[in-house]
Structures are given as structure tokens and as C-alpha cells.
């Protein structure tokens, strides 16, 4: 009987297991393998040589890119979370059910359009002769350089992550038991303290997962730093492209990709551990 049940469960789980093996584990193993290959005459040749690891890890600019990518993706995730929170709070606690549904639908709409198109549309707004500078000009400010700057990169990242952050935060907060909030207020907790001591702890898991998604998407994004940040400084995805463009060094690009994956594994693992950690005294 138990055996039959296991087979039944396995049958349903098999597609996802196969999918992960074929499209995740397989490619990752292949990527690790090619990081030891060598390139001769623009052709990758199987080998077991540490030269790519030595070259990439020994270069200052790779580490500069690494720390910059880590910093700018973290900054962008933090900004996304901060901007998203008041909006999500209002949608979760102040808006009617109907309005919340419409708001979430509207937040999904940007994903109907290609991210590249959305990124390019910022050119019209952020250019020195663009809409934003024109508006600032009316009040005697500017023009400011916003394209090809760190600011431009962060705007691009937020284009990708902000709607997602608001949706995830809204869904999380909307599921908080209202009686706990009312109890806090009845016991004399002020509104800000209620948010800090009740809402945030109760939505901790969702908030951390939202922040994690924002970080992951920004960390691996090529489009924003390239088109809005002007490649200065290059992030790791740009470095991967540069490495493959020059001399077709796919093995060296694989080294950078592995660095990125290991970083994401470490951060995701820590974030999930934090998200599901029970508060002190809880059983």
C-alpha cells in the first residue's frame, strides 16, 4: 500500500524532477565543466585546466565588478522594498477588496510589455532633453544627467522589480489576521509602533522573499546597467558579455556565472533561513 502511494506521488513529481534535472542540474554541471575547458582558435576544447579560474579570480576588475554588482543590486532591492511598502500597506489595509484587485491587475500589466521596451521608454523621460528635465526646467532646475549613470541603472532595476515587490508585499500583508492588529491598537500601540511591532514581524516571510526576488532579478540583469547605466561601471552580466565577445572566452564567462550563482545560493539560503526563523520563545 505504502509502495503504491509512493509510486503515485512519484508519478506526479516526476515531471518537475525531470525538468530540474534536464534544465537546471544538467546545464549547471555543464557550465562547471566548461569553466575548465580551454579555447583554441575560437573553438572550445575539453580540458581540465584551472587557467580560467586563475585568470578571472586574479583580476582586479572582476572583483570590482563583483562588489559593484552586489552593491547596486542590494541598493535597488532596498529602494524597491521601501517604495513598495507604503503602497502595499495602503492596498492591504486601507483599500477595498475591489480596489486591491484592480491595483494588482494594474501592477501586472507592465509585465505584458517586454522589459527591453520598458527600459528604452526611459530614454524619453530621463534624457537631458527629456520629459523629466523639461518639467524640472519649469521650476528653474536642471538639466540633470540621469542616463548612463548609477541612477539610470537603479531606475531600470526598479522598472523590473518594483511592481513585483508591491504585489508580493500586498498579498503578504492582506493575509495578516486583522484581529492581531486590532488587539495591538486596543492595547494602546500607536500606528507606527503597530506597523513596526506587529505588521512587519507578521509579514516577515513575505517581505524577505520579496526583497530576495528584487535582489536576484537585479543581480542578474543585463539590460538596465547596459542601456540606462551606460556600462559604467560594468556589472557581472556585462562582464560575461564582454568576456564572450572577446576571444569567445566562454569558459571564463562560465567562471563569472558560477561566481554569480554561488553568491545567489548563499544569499537566497540566508534569506530563506531568516524568513522562516521562528521568533525567540516561539515553539
Amino acid at each position, binding site marked *: 500500500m505504502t509502495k503504491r502511494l509512493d509510486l503515485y506521488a512519484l508519478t506526479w513529481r516526476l515531471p518537475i524532477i525531470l525538468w530540474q534535472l534536464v534544465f537546471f542540474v544538467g546545464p549547471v554541471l555543464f557550465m562547471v565543466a566548461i569553466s575548465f575547458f580551454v579555447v583554441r582558435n575560437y573553438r572550445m576544447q575539453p580540458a581540465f585546466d584551472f587557467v580560467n579560474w586563475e585568470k578571472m579570480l586574479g*583580476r582586479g576588475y572582476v572583483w570590482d*565588478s563583483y562588489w559593484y554588482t552586489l552593491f547596486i543590486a542590494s541598493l535597488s532591492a532596498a529602494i524597491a522594498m521601501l517604495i513598495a511598502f507604503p503602497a502595499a500597506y495602503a492596498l492591504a489595509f486601507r483599500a477595498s477588496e475591489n480596489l486591491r484587485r484592480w491595483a494588482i491587475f494594474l501592477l501586472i500589466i507592465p509585465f505584458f510589455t517586454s522589459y527591453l521596451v520598458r527600459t528604452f521608454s526611459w530614454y524619453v523621460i530621463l534624457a537631458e532633453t527629456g520629459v523629466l528635465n523639461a518639467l524640472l526646467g519649469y521650476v528653474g532646475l536642471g538639466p540633470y*544627467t540621469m*542616463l*548612463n549613470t548609477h541612477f539610470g541603472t537603479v531606475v531600470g532595476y526598479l522598472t523590473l522589480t518594483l511592481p513585483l515587490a508591491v504585489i508580493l508585499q500586498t498579498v503578504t500583508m492582506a493575509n495578516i489576521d486583522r484581529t492581531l492588529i486590532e488587539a495591538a491598537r486596543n492595547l494602546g500601540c500607536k500606528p507606527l509602533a503597530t506597523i513596526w511591532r506587529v505588521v512587519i514581524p507578521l509579514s516577515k516571510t513575505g517581505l524577505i522573499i520579496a526583497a530576495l526576488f528584487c535582489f536576484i532579478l537585479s543581480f542578474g540583469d543585463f539590460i538596465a546597467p547596459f542601456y540606462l547605466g*551606460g*556600462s*559604467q561601471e560594468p556589472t557581472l552580466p556585462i562582464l560575461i558579455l564582454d568576456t564572450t565577445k*572577446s576571444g*569567445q572566452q566562454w569558459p571564463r564567462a562560465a567562471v563569472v556565472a558560477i561566481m554569480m550563482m554561488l553568491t545567489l545560493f548563499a544569499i537566497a539560503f540566508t534569506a530563506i533561513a531568516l524568513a522562516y526563523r521562528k521568533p525567540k520563545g516561539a515553539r
Partner: protein
Amino acid sequence: MSCDKNKKKQFLRRDVLRLGGGVALSAPFVSRAWAQTTEINMLAWYGHGEPDIVGAFEEANNVKFVPKYYAGGDNMLALIAQSPPGTYDLILSDAEFVQQLNALGYIEELNAADYPFDDMLHPDFEKFPGHWADDKLFSMMVRGGHLGVSYNTNSVSAEEAASYDAFWKPELEGKVGHFDWHLPSLGMMSLKNGNGAGLWDLDEDQWQAVQETTMSLRQQVGGFFDYGGTFNGLKNGEMQAMVGIGDWITGVLERDGAPVASVIPNEGGIQWTESYSIGIGSEKADICKQFIQYMLSPEGQVKSAQMAAYPGFCITKAGRAMLQEVDPKEAKRSHQMEGMPNDPIALINEGRIHYRDIPQQQSLEDWNDFWSEYKNA
């Protein structure tokens, strides 16, 4: 009612059978009609397989070009290396990569008698470096263009643009863009350092000096761009000057009335050169040869000069004459007229143009490493 229904079913079945039979019987004729159109697999920079270039040839010869576009010589070599012989019938490459194409055995020998060497605008084009090996021709140059100072005419004067120093103009801080490829940008820095004809052949001290000069430009730089980004940056005024490009980009913008221009500064400029080769093992070598001949004909040369994606100058006398006749505006804009100060051929004659090459004493990897460092600085 049920009888009617059956009738309808029978009719449908017969109809389907008839239709299926018809398709089956006509298939050989259809496939024969298709077979008459020869497909030519072309490996080229963007634009070369577009209708404005190949349309008339396709129509006249019942062929169809199937272009595979690449960006950069490395990318081209990798695409060929990873494909079985015979995949590409026609290969358009930058001249500096022809030698490698030949050394790696990717291209067929050409018959020099098939091409108009007696009509070249400059003697250098007859024996272009790397195109010949042991007196055998392997690739045929079809067009070229010059790289120098590209700038917005509203913020940089023609006098200022006469030197690479223009890129260091204080007012341009954050407004100088780079085409994101180390070879032309570092080549220009080498020219600024006075290396002249030896710009690619740098000893250790010269290479060090080129790196220092390049680094001193970093604070002026507002971004590193691909073709689209370079185009946009100059068009919307975000970038007021651009390193590593020339008329091949500003020419397209200039045709649209944008206030941009490219000049060859006093320190000298760099020539990009594009050449056609026939892929090894191609079964369509004859029609490929005809196409190369067509691109070298006056009509082909004019099409190349007017190319929508990016213009290049004519390399044959007849081509230039026809351009002046049918499109004097473009001939004038691109200085392809005798007596004009920036006439590309006159610039070569004056020794101000150096053909783009790969570094002689360093590896491409050294240059690329420095380029990555520079971008991160």
C-alpha cells in the same frame, strides 16, 4: 435527417481525400519551383543581407540570401569554427580577420582575374594586407570607411575636432562616449600618442603610454555603447563626442539632419575595411563570385555607399563616378569627390589613414583586459 447527416459526412471525407490527393500530386511541382531559387547562406555584419543591398541581385539571379549577422571579428570566427564546413557560402569580414580565416582554412581561393583590380581607386586596395597569401587571392575588398573624431557640431568646432584632444575638452566631461570595442578606441589613443603608422606595433613603453592616455580620458566618459546605444547617444545629445567610430554611424544620423560629423584629425585616422570571401566547401561558389563582382560593379558600389545600415566609401573608380552621377548629395556628404579636403582617397594618399589591424606585440587578450579595467576605473 440522419440520412442527410451521413451524406454531408461522405462529402466531407471525399473532399478531404481530393484535397489531400491534390496536394500530394502537386508537391513535386511546388518543390521544383522552390528548388529553382538558390539560397545563399551569408555571414556578415548587420545590413549586408538586407533588401537595399541584395534585393536587385536576388531578383535578377533568382537567389535568396539567408543572412546570419554577427558583431565583431571574434564573433564571426567563433560562428564559423562552431559550424560544419560549407555552412556559410559567403563571408563578409573585417580585413584584419581575413588572414585568420585563411590560416584556419575557412575560405576558398579566389581567381584574381574575376575582379576589377585595374579599376581600384588606390593601389593599396589591389594587394590589401592579409588578402593574398603566396600570390594567391583569398578575399576581395569591397568597401571601407574611416574612423576619427565624431562629434556634435553644436558643441565642438571643426578646428577642435582636428585633434583627438577634442575628447579632453573640459566642457565635454561626462559627454564623451565610447563605442564598446577596444580595437578602434585604443588605436585612436595610440595615434594621439604620436605612434602614427606604428599604432598597432607597440613596445612595452608605448603600450604603457597608451594605457595612461586612455585612463586620463576616463573622467570625460559618459558611457560605453553598442551600435544602437552609440546611435541614440549622439542623436538625443546625451553624448557630444564619440570615440571609436566614424562616418559609418554619424553618416546615418547626418542624412537625417542631425548636427553631427566625423573628421580625420591631424594625428591620423583608422580605416575599417570589409571584404568578401567564399566559404570553404560551398557548393554555390559561382553565384557567390557573381555577387562579389556585383558588389564591385558601379551599381553595387553605389548601393554600398547608400547602405541604410551604415555607409561605406566606394573603392572603384567606376563606382565613385556613378555615385557622383546618381547621388551627388551623398557623394558630397561623404566627401567622395576629388578635391574635397576629407576625400577618403586623398587622406590615404596623404598618409593620414592607417588600416585597422590587431595588436602586434600584445595579444588581443591583453588589450581586452585593459579595456575591462578601463571600463571599471
